[in-house]
């Protein structure tokens, strides 16, 4: 039968169309088909933990480290990064547009109690968002009110919802660029180094999961971090804009 591996991936990598672009190149080179199961980072790691994927492709450094430390994964490989952006209504009721400091923007939003849509699903994006609130010195537990809406859904759904609620939200640039229902939303804050969003791949540990196709999985990882794979990632654009940036150097 055909050679294939199963990759449990964060939704942003799949929804942005990246895989659709680069996987055929990988298949042509190696003959290995990659089956991508798009899930939230939390669920993707859980899938790996249950040995149901050969490789996980996620973006939450803290839980990734835990995943490897507990022996579920072999090793983290940084693959690429993009960044988070603060998106909000074009009318910008909190007056944050053009700022470079995300914490200032968040403070303004909290102080004016302008609607903010949080993923609220423990995803990589959600965790990053909470780190940023913390960095802004805002205790969410206290500041929370009807303005802070925990959507409990994926990035796309949250964008759909925020667009209707005139709410601010944090999203990754890849999903934003590929999102087709922007309505009244626009990027208001970007470029802060704290908005850095690194993606990693991890081979699921074959000693814990004997069914893992370790050679094929490793081949995929190797290709992603190889110059060829990195070039493919960097070449992916939507509307002339690059979504992801190669990141081999950031390997830890």
């Amino acid at each position, binding site marked *: 039968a055909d050679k294939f591996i199963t990759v449990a991936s964060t939704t942003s990598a799949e929804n942005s169309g990246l895989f659709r672009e680069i996987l055929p190149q990988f298949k042509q080179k190696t003959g290995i088909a990659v089956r991508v199961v798009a*899930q*939230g980072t*939390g*669920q*993707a*790691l*859980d*899938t790996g933990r249950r040995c149901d994927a050969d490789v996980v492709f996620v973006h939450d450094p803290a839980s990734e480290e835990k995943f490897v430390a507990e022996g579920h994964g072999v090793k983290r490989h940084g693959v690429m990064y993009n960044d988070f952006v603060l998106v909000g209504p074009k009318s910008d009721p909190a007056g944050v547009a053009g700022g470079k400091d995300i914490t200032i923007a968040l403070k303004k939003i909290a102080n004016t109690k302008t609607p903010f849509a949080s993923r*609220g*699903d*423990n*995803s990589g994006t959600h965790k990053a968002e909470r780190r940023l609130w913390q960095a802004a010195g805002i205790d969410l537990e206290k500041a929370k009110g009807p303005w802070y*809406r*925990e*959507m*409990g*859904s*994926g990035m796309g*759904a949250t964008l*759909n*919802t925020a667009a*209707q*609620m005139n709410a601010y939200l944090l999203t990754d640039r890849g999903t934003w660029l590929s999102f087709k229902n922007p*309505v009244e939303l626009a990027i208001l804050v970007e470029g802060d180094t704290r908005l850095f969003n690194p993606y990693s791949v991890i081979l699921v540990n074959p000693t814990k999961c004997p069914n893992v196709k370790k050679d094929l999985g490793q081949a995929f990882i190797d290709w992603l971090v190889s110059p060829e794979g990195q070039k493919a990632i960097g070449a992916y654009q939507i509307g002339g804009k690059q979504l992801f940036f190669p990141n081999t150097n950031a390997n830890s």
Partner: protein
Amino acid sequence: MNTLGLAFQQAIDMISRGDPELVEIVLLSLRVSLTATLIASGIALPIGAATGVAKFPGRQVLIVIFNALMGLPPVVIGLLVYLLLSRAGPLGDYGLLFTPTAMIIAQTILIVPIVAALSRQVIEDAWSEYSEQLRSLGAGLTQSALTLLWDTRFSLVTVVLAGFGRAAAEVGAVMIVGGNIAGVTRVMTTAIALETSKGDLPLALGLGIVLISLVLLLNAVAYGVKRIAQRRYG
């Protein structure tokens, strides 16, 4: 302990603790699904009775359409209601999107075809027995339809329960039009979906167990009431 065991433990925990957040979610779920079932039955039972009894041109087409609409995905209904209620949509001014009302609307649309198609079958079966007698008694189509709704009421309970089950179980529509906002539009099924996407399968399953226990309880009550009434009124 395995996931299933954990799930049961979580379910028992949540129930015995009476977790106020859970209680809120449960009550909203019940409110949304029961209201939708009520409204949908009010709309669909007459439709079912009419298509079961009357022979009008286009009746067969209507029957096929309702049968087919039982296969309309909740997500699609969600999207349609979303477009309808969105600020850019025709009913945008009412500000109903992301409210329980929006969820009730979506679930109502979801189950109307189910209740209509199934009740049509029940009523049509009864009609083959009653038809000549009722027509001879001078009953018009409306009166015949009403008579049959009454005479088959015990069978229709199962039909309505099927509609309720569908409403209680669906997530696609309420997720889109409700937005799964914590404390506002989060219901059992969207909470389950959320925990699943977080990878917290035991909690997701635990919520599932709570939900199905609830539905079970409601069904037991409905069945009990039906049995008693059936014994009394034959």
